[in-house]
Every structure is written in structure tokens, then in C-alpha cells.
């Protein structure tokens, strides 16, 4: 079975700093997708960034980028120039190419401090 591990339950950084959230996963398969989701306080969960396992190039979306290390089964999220609006729960998620179930980690609560 596939598992997703987020080792940092909670983090705090100063506004404008760069922060990296860790995620590791376990699978014996080769074709899959990885995602980072953001859930602001009392608000809807939204997709931040998506990575296809067959692509070596790391995905980026504005201030958000990933460091995808397939051999190490690691998928970290880097937030550059952090803003107060980045305060949220962040979830790492995994989807097998041949499957329909999306598996989530337990989340990292990120606080951006003014």
C-alpha cells in the first residue's frame, strides 16, 4: 500500500523568508502523480502544485516550487518570499497512475509571522 509521510506537524517562519515543507512517500510503482494542497484557516482546500513522476523537471507555480527526488521518494515544497496569506495547513498527496484513490499525508500547519 502507498503511504505519504509529512514529518513536520507545525512550522513557523517570518514573513518574506523561504520555507521548505517535507514529504516522503512509499511506493513500489513507477507511474504516479504527486500534489501539494493548501487549506487556509476555515477555508476550502485548494491545489497548489502538481508533479508527474515521469517528468524530471521540478514543477513551479509562482512562489511555490517542488524538489522532487524520485529515487529518494521525496517531494518537498518550497515557498519563497512567504506572505501572511500563506498561513495554512499544507497536505502532500499521492495518486497512482493506474488507480483513482488520492492518498494524503497528515499535514503540516504553517504559520507565517509578521
Amino acid at each position, binding site marked *: 500500500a502507498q503511504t505519504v509521510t*509529512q514529518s513536520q*506537524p507545525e512550522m513557523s517562519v517570518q514573513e518574506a523568508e523561504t520555507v521548505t515543507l517535507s514529504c516522503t512517500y512509499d511506493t513500489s510503482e513507477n507511474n504516479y*502523480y504527486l*500534489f501539494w*494542497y493548501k487549506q487556509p484557516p476555515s*477555508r*476550502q*482546500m*485548494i*491545489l497548489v502544485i*502538481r508533479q*508527474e513522476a515521469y517528468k524530471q523537471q521540478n514543477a513551479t507555480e509562482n512562489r511555490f516550487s517542488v524538489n522532487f527526488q524520485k529515487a529518494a521518494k521525496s517531494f518537498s515544497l518550497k515557498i519563497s518570499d512567504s506572505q501572511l496569506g500563506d498561513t495554512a495547513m499544507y*497536505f502532500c*498527496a499521492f*495518486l497512482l*497512475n493506474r488507480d*483513482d*484513490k*488520492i*492518498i*494524503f*499525508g*497528515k*499535514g503540516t500547519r504553517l504559520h507565517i509571522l509578521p
Partner: protein
Amino acid sequence: DVKVTQSSRYLVKRTGEKVFLECVQDMDHENMFWYRQDPGLGLRLIYFSYDVKMKEKGDIPEGYSVSREKKERFSLILESASTNQTSMYLCASSARLLGAFFGQGTRLTVV
């Protein structure tokens, strides 16, 4: 924009009641999911459906059932609500490899 709408934002029910949580998506997605979110436990999959009238158990299906009579609607049913089912419930739909799109969540309290 993909829209996933859950019928209630907050719900309070009594122990033993039958509870229906409704979810509607407007993007013609085949897959729909019900997750439960609890502090420290992340999102746990209750049930998912990959087509009309098709369903599959997730990791924690006990005490729950689902119904998908139409493609756009996926209902979660608590047959006899118990206090340990007090939680945040999240519905999502997906077009497979694009990832999941979530509703706003239903915070259910069972008293």
C-alpha cells in the same frame, strides 16, 4: 472554475440519527470522494466512487455508506450517528490525473 458544493457548512445531529451529507460537482468528473479530517490524522478516505452506482471502500468505511445515483451527486450517509463521528467531512471530485477539487467541508457535531 470547478465547483464542488457541500449542502451544509455546519451540522448538529443527535446520537442515533440518520445523517445525510450531500455533495454536488459541476465539472462532469467521474471520480468523487468523501474524506474525514481530524486534527493530527490528516485526511482519511471513507468511500470513493468512480462512476454512477459504483463505489469502493476507503480506509475507514465502518459506520458509513454512500450513494451515487447521478454523476454529479455523491452522498455520504451515517446510518446511526455516534459521537465519534464528530468531525470535518470533505467531499472532492477529480478528473483523475489533474488532482482533486474540494468542497468547503461540513463540520458535523454529534451530540
